[in-house]
C-alpha cells in the first residue's frame, strides 16, 4: 500500500500560485527529500500535507484514504506527525514533560484525570525509551527552553515520534545548526528510520543531508516540480543544476 500519494496539488493565495499541480508518491520506508530555492513552495506544499493549509485543488491520499479536508489533529490520529521550520516545543517544561505530553496525547489519555497504574507505567516506559533513543536522558529534567538549538530540535523530533507515526514530516530539521549538530540530527533520523520503518518526507537546505539520507529527491522551483529522481539522477540533471544546485554552490 502506498504510504502517501499527492495528486495534482495546487494552492493559490489570491493571484499568487504558491504550489502548481504537484504529484508525488511516497512508499513505505522511503525517505523523500523536497528541495528547491527559497520561495519555491516547499513549506506550502508541506503545510497542505500536514493539514495546516487546505489545497485549492488536488487530492492528498494517506494509505489510500483521501485526507485533503481532514483536520490536522485527525491526521495525527491516522498516523502522520510533523516538525516545524522554527522549532515548536514546550519551552518552560522539562524534556521529560514534553515527551510525556506527547505520549499521553498519542495514547488518548488527554482527557483523563485519573490514570491507572498500568497506564502510568506504560507512559513512563515509553518516555524512557524515547529519551534513550534521543540521547537526552541526562538532560531529561531540564527545561527545553534552556537547551541548545540541536537538543531542542531533537526533542521536537522525539515528540513527533512519540505519536508512533507511519509518516514523519520534517521541515528543515537542521536549519540554523552547526556542523556537529547537523551531523547528529542526520544520524538520529537514520537511526529512527531504520528502527521504526518510517516513511519520511523532509524539506532540507543542507545538500549533504539530502544526498546522504534521501532515497528519492523532488526539486521544486517557483511552485512547480522541476525534477524528481534518485540522488544520482538529480545530481546529474542539467535543469536542476542550472536552477538550483549551481546557484546554491
Amino acid at each position, binding site marked *: 500500500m502506498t504510504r502517501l500519494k499527492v495528486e495534482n496539488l495546487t494552492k493559490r493565495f489570491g493571484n499568487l500560485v504558491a504550489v502548481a499541480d504537484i504529484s508525488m508518491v511516497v512508499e513505505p520506508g522511503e525517505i523523500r527529500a523536497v528541495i528547491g530555492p527559497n520561495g519555491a513552495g516547499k513549506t506550502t506544499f508541506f503545510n497542505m500535507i500536514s493539514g495546516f493549509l487546505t489545497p485549492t485543488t488536488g487530492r492528498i491520499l494517506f494509505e489510500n484514504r483521501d485526507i485533503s479536508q481532514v483536520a490536522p489533529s485527525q491526521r495525527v490520529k491516522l498516523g502522520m506527525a510533523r516538525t516545524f521550520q522554527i522549532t515548536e516545543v514546550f519551552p*518552560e517544561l522539562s524534556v521529560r*514533560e514534553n515527551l*510525556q*505530553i506527547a505520549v499521553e496525547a498519542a495514547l488518548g489519555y488527554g482527557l483523563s484525570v485519573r490514570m491507572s497504574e498500568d497506564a502510568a507505567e506504560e507512559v513512563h516506559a515509553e518516555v524512557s525509551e524515547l529519551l534513550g533513543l534521543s540521547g537526552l536522558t541526562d538532560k531529561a529534567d531540564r527545561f527545553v527552553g534552556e537547551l541548545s538549538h540541536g537538543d531542542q530540535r531533537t526533542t521536537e523530533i522525539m515528540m513527533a515520534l512519540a505519536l508512533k507515526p507511519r509518516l514523519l514530516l520534517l521541515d528543515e530539521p537542521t536549519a540554523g545548526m552547526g556542523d556537529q549538530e547537523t551531523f547528529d540530527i542526520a544520524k538520529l533520523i537514520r537511526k529512527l528510520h531504520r528502527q521504526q520503518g518510517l516513511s519520511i518526507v523532509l524539506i532540507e537546505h543542507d545538500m549533504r543531508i539530502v544526498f546522504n539520507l534521501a532515497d528519492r529527491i523532488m526539486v521544486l522551483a517557483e511552485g512547480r516540480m522541476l525534477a524528481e529522481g534518485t540522488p544520482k539522477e538529480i545530481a546529474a540533471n542539467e535543469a536542476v543544476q542550472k536552477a538550483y544546485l549551481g546557484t546554491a554552490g
Partner: protein
Amino acid sequence: MLNNGSLTRYAPSVIGWIVLVSLPEWINVVAYTDLGSRVVILGLAAMALNFLLGHTGVLSFGHAAYFGLGAYGAGLTLRYLAPSTGLAILVGTGVGMMAAMLIGPLIIRLRGVYFAMVTIAFGQIFYFIAFRWSTLTGGDDGLTNWSRQPINLGFATIDLKSPVAFYYLVLFVFAVATAIMAKLLNSPFGRSLLAIRENERRALFLGIPVNLRIWLSWTVSCGFASVAGAMYALLNNFVDPRTLHWSQSGAFVIMAVLGGMRSFWGPLIGAAIYVVLQDYLSSRTSNWMSLVGLVFVLVVLFFPRGVLGMLGRRTQA
C-alpha cells in the same frame, strides 16, 4: 520518599495550611477574622482565574461575571427560594458554571486580546442586567434582606453567625476546591492544558483538540470563580452589581500576576497582598488604588514571575 527534595517541595504548602488553619487564633491581633475570609475567598477566585490564565495561557478579563453570578445565585436562593446555605452555594456555583459553559463555544476560537475583550463584553452584559433589573436584584442598592443560615447536617447544626465559624466553612470549601484543581492540573488533562499554554501549534500537531480543551478549562475556571462568588455573598450577607463589574475582573488578574501566574498558590498570595493593602490604605486615602497600581507595576517590572515566582521557580501543590 521524604528526601531533601520533597521536603523543600512540601514545606511551603504545609506552612501555608498551618497559617490558614490557625488564622482565627492570631488575626485579631492585627485585623479581624472577616478579613481572613475575604483573603481566602478572593484567593480562590484568583486561583480559579489562574487555572485559565497561568495554566492554560488564556487571559480572561471577565471572570467577575461568573464570580458575581455565583454571588447573586447564592443571595437570590436565600432571599427567595429556601433558607439553606448549602443550597445557596450549589445554586450559585451551578448558575455561574452553566453560564460559562454556554458562553464558551462563542468565544473559544478567539485568542489573546480578542478573547480578553469579548470576556469583558459578556461580563458587562451581566453587570447591566443586575443593575437594571432592580425588582429582582435590588439594582444599584444591592440585594438585601437575607443572611447566611445555619447548616443542618442531620446529626448536628453548624451556626455560621460567628465570623470564626464562617471562616472555617470558607476554608473547608477552599480546601476542597483547590484539591480538585491540583488534581486536575496534575493529570494528563492538566498537562494538555500546559501544552496549550506553552505552544498551541505544537499541541495541535500532537493531536490535542485545542479549542475543546480551552472550553473545558474555561468552564472549570469559571465554575470555581462562581464557588468563590457564592462564598463572597455569604460573607457579606449582601450582593451588589459591582461584584460583576469588569474592574473586579481586573482585580483578579492583578492578584494572579502579583502572586505569580506560574505557581499554583501564587494567586492566593496575590489576593492577600491586594486585600490587606486595600483594607489598610482605603481607610487612609481614597486614592488607594493608585498605590496598589504602583505595587503592581513594581512587581511586574522587577519580579515578572510574581512574588512566589521570585521565591522558587517551581513552587507547586
